[in-house]
């Protein structure tokens, strides 16, 4: 184990796989010398050279589309889209090409590609640089959607994503990049599709991912002091979703609160709530609560932005409404 930041851990995951498999390469805007807009790829250019760490022109459509072609032709690209907010520029490549090619071709193509992209508010980067858009990708069959909330999961899920033979949307959180954690050294794989109970509890299940995981854990600590034992479950990947883990937890607690940073309407919290309101209806003894951003674009001014982002306090409040 080594202490590393989330950014270092993700970078280490990429490095492990790039050393292991020459078919893996990394490209995107300013990922080379510049080291990526948030420094996540720093040093990889120096380590692997200009053939395997490649700067692109500002052309998200060509980045994502060429990842599809390269993967279909046998490489394993890791493409970076500088902010998840820019995914709109290449949604066709993701929606209609990456996700569907295998199915449309009757199973006769494999698309081992990872699209890495950072999400999240917290830097006063305003409405076009702070979004959290995972729900879109979960609505596209054929993709896997991964959102690590800790450094170790960042590394392990990155390695798993690179080895996966399907297109994986790998969403990093900007605010987490500097967060430290213990991370296994060398090869380390976290299976995609397996949730992790980050804190055990008996009274209420809180499902939270990415940055919201840490807020949920903090809220759980406070709640413990008030005698409420919260279980905090991190799905880690939204597609595939470890539905059983969620239902098992709700079976134990009878109560469910879902937390995400994305706007409320049609966020992935709705999907989880819907699954539980169907398959876990009899397990529930209280309404399902969601703690989310409001249905607005993200405001710039720090005072507004911090009112916008779901907070520990809001999670505590939502949990208490159930008791």
């Amino acid at each position, binding site marked *: 184990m080594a202490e590393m930041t989330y950014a270092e851990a993700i970078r280490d995951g990429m490095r492990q796989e790039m050393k292991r498999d020459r078919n893996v390469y990394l490209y995107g805007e300013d990922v080379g010398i510049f080291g990526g807009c948030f420094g996540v790829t720093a040093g990889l250019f120096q380590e692997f050279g200009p053939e395997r760490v490649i700067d692109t022109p500002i052309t998200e459509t060509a980045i*994502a589309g060429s990842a599809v072609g390269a993967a279909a032709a046998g490489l394993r690209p890791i493409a970076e889209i500088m902010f998840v907010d820019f995914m709109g520029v290449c949604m066709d490549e993701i929606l*209609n*090409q990456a996700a569907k090619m295998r199915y449309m071709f009757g199973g006769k193509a494999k698309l081992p590609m990872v699209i890495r992209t950072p999400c999240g508010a917290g830097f006063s980067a305003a409405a076009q640089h702070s979004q959290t858009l995972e729900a879109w990708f979960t609505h596209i069959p054929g993709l896997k959607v991964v959102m690590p909330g800790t450094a170790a999961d960042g590394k392990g899920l990155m390695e798993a994503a690179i080895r996966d033979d399907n297109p994986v949307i790998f969403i990093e959180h900007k605010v987490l990049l500097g967060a430290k954690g213990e991370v296994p050294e060398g090869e380390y794989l976290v299976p995609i599709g397996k949730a992790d109970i980050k804190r055990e509890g008996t009274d209420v299940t809180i499902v939270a991912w990415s940055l919201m995981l840490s807020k949920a854990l903090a809220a759980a600590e406070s709640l413990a002091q008030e005698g409420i034992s919260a279980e905090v479950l991190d799905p880690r990947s939204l597609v595939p979703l470890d539905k059983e883990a969620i239902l098992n937890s709700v079976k134990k607690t009878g109560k469910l609160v879902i937390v995400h940073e994305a706007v409320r309407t049609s966020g992935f919290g709705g999907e989880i709530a819907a699954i539980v309101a169907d398959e876990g209806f009899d397990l529930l003894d209280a309404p399902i609560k969601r703690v989310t951003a409001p249905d607005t674009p993200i405001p710039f001014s720090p005072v507004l932005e911090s009112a916008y982002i779901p907070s520990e306090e809001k999670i505590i409040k939502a949990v208490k409404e159930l008791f």
Partner: protein
Amino acid sequence: MEPTKDQLLDIFKTMSTIRAFESKAVELFAAGKLPGFVHLYLGEEAVATGVCANLTIKDYITSTHRGHGHLIAKGGKIDLMMAELFGKKTGYCKGKGGSMHIADVDLGILGANGIVGAGQPISVGAAFACKYRKTDSVTVCFFGDGASNRGTFHESLNMASVWKLPVIFVAENNMYGISNSQKTSMNVADIADRAAAYGIPGVAVDGNDVIAVFEAASEAVKRARRGDGPTLIECKTWRWRGHFEGDPSVYKKPEDQESWLKKDPIPRLEAKLVDLKYATQPELDKIKSEIKAQVEDAVKFAEESALPDIEDVLTDVYAN
């Protein structure tokens, strides 16, 4: 480079196969046997054929919604194609893709594509893979005049150029994007002129003259294999049919249609073959009727094939 005798005879066979396949599709669609949209390549056979005659099985192509011709020219099997058009289990895509999604990755065919322009960045990626692996394989990207206006065109040609990728962009200018005349959709006479914006060669050829197409492609393929980067080739041609089967093409002028029908690329090639004494007309006619018989066999295969099983809806979404 001029095509050899063997190449030219092969070209003739390929063009005739496309012609026969597409003519049959007209019939089958009219008879209600083909579900979905069908976009036919009739009249444009010289383009795909002249280009693909320069490729090997290790090269890649990306195709379009109007893909049958490209697929046949790159070696696609007409029985599996036909079965796919019928939506049968034995089709190229097990009936899941249909006309717009036929692919044969083993033959380097990265798929027909229902999204106009989508093949452009995909071709860049495939070409990147060839260069990355240090093979001398190339990728050909077919697309229409309409697709030449999409943002994907710009981003793809730019990326291919700055990375000197082995890709040949083939703009099939059949003068229309559905009902929109190329003349009103862009303000340049030759799409080939757009190559200058990327610092790559651009060449416009008569797309109904298969030898001209072959020669232009031959140059471009050589250049790409040498590592000198992409070329844009524009082939001027004409779509004989409506945009899709069922479109009465009210937007076309009858006199244009008539004059282009006269430029049929197949008789033109036949005359050349006879002229060069590569074959006699009766020999050519015989080949054509053999091909027609093969197409009939493909139809028979398709008709006799089983429909997909309902459970197949759920499979092939993910690998593993």
